[in-house]
């Protein structure tokens, strides 16, 4: 169904006629995107890791449309508290958006939910003997919010930062107070190669029969449904529906979106892992 009105929440400057035009061109086979990208093509971006020397891991990413995101990861030693039951609060995620968008709670939840996937094995790596554990603070700073939805930018930067996070090696016994090796070369990665990597979230918009990755703001408002698919390795660990679009979608569409996301994610992972190897 063609969206007759602009989506109120995304507040696009498009008139109903422009929106209808965009919708039609996106439903064509093959579809025509306004910036002539292919459906699975991402906009160019600049990424670098290990930019903040005083953190355990950090990354910065600059998006083509002006979005800029910096993530810093810091770890502290904390005593296991008696009252807290689970290790749920061992990783604390804080999303700060300059210019304060109202939906940062939603963003924070999306990141936290996928990062704290049960069974990913991260929390087990934070245990320090019997009485202590690492407390990891992930501070996500969105310096310049992109014109489109910031979820992808945010999670890609977080992925990069976490991949480059190292924790000092524990040299004390399990029952003792923790003592660490002061040689940074011996530090252990938070996400070792071969174990389950941190998750990323891809934004996918569906228009008619077509599926588009990395949508712009205009494409978001012309879409039938906008899904944020969180992928960890080769597994889909979370799907969320975002604002935008009108009316519902058939279940076949949702399934196709999820399937294609998995394929695209694989490519994204391999590209992200090559960041930092070049320089």
């Amino acid at each position, binding site marked *: 169904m063609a969206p007759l009105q602009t989506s*109120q929440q995304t507040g696009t400057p498009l008139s109903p006629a422009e929106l209808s035009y965009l919708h039609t061109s996106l439903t064509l086979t093959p579809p025509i995107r306004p910036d002539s990208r292919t459906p699975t093509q991402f906009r160019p971006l600049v990424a670098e890791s290990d930019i903040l020397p005083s953190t355990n891991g950090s990354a910065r990413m600059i998006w083509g449309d002006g979005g800029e995101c910096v993530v810093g990861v810091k770890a502290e030693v904390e005593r296991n508290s008696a009252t807290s039951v689970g290790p749920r609060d061992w990783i604390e995620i804080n999303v700060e958006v300059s210019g304060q968008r109202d939906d940062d709670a939603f963003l924070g939840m999306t990141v936290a939910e996928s990062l704290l996937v049960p069974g990913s094995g991260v929390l087990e790596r934070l245990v320090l003997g019997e009485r202590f554990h690492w407390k990891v603070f992930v501070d996500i700073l969105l310096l310049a919010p992109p014109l489109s939805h910031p979820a992808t930018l945010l999670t890609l930067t977080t992925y990069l930062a976490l991949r480059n996070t190292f924790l000092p090696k524990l040299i004390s016994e399990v029952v003792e107070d923790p003592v660490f090796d002061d040689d940074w070369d011996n530090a252990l990665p938070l996400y070792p190669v071969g174990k389950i990597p941190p998750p990323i979230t891809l934004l996918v918009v569906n228009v008619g029969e077509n599926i588009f990755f990395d949508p712009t703001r205009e494409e978001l408002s012309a879409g039938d449904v906008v899904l944020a698919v969180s992928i960890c390795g080769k597994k*889909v660990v979370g*799907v969320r529906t975002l604002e935008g679009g009108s009316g519902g979608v058939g279940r076949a569409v949702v399934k196709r979106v*999820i399937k294609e996301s998995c394929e695209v994610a694989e490519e994204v992972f391999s590209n992200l892992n090559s960041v930092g190897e070049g320089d």
Partner: protein
Amino acid sequence: MTDRRRINGPLEGTIPPVFLTSSTHKSIIKRSPTTLRKIFLKTGLTPPATGSAFLELPTPSTHSTPTLKLTSSVYGPRPLPSSTTFSSNARLTAELKFSPFSTPGRRRGYIRDGVERDLSAQLSIALGKSVAVGKYPKSAIDVFVSVLDCEGGLGDAGDEAGGGVDVGLMSVLATAISCASAAIADAGIECFDLVAGGVAGLVLEQGGVVEEDRVEKSLEVGQDSDDARRGMRKNGKVTLVLDPSPIDGYIILAAAAVGYMAARDELTLVWTKGSMGWDGDSTDEVERIVDGAITASTGVRLVINEAVKERLLLGLKEMGLIRGKAVSGDGDAAMS
């Protein structure tokens, strides 16, 4: 941060009672994985509102097990405040709030927290796509949902229900969608279709019975828990459970909540969570839980239909358009 507009507790701070044995044994009601729990849904319990509904799950409730109870009221379409810009569509906003006494563990504060804002946003997406917003230009439709009682499993720090995916928030959202949709119908607001919420999850099962000690084991986080999980995966069987409850004691590997419009066979909301703890084909797994959640919501839809129909007949009878016995009396008897 004290709230000056309310009466606050002692400054020293208070803690919820700590019990001698860690957790009281929950009675697990045997329910087959594909059986949905019974729902009590009644519209029109908040007469000052344009439309309202009350939902209770499961019903009839026993005293020992927690229930999910929520009320929903809808106001509108009413004019947008003059300060807002022109809108050719109705603006639908949804607010979900947990009552201070609704959750296990710590008492919930009055100020909206991240979880509530997140659920509110998802609720307004699920409902907004079902309402014919184009029919009501320059107007606002406000949906309020108050959770009076819930089953836990909300993923709060210190929540007892742990291990696997927290399904509590999902079932709160799904029932909130169903309840609010009934309230929207009660308000007489034009919709494409009614939305029903449904939840399904994949659980690890062993010979038809979920083993208690396995549940305990997965709660511990230690070096060996990863291996323990791997071990039990070998002899465990993964089963799809419709309408899982946090008190059932399952280890939920993946769960989905959907907002589903049955008459159009369309989804307005998809929310899935999965855990990494087992290997299976990823996309198949997601498809399975989404399909399961749709099945669950189809069952809920029948209840919404009945509640809306009941209300409609009552309204027609009040106007003297049809004759016959009154369909129902005062509905608040169900709160007992």
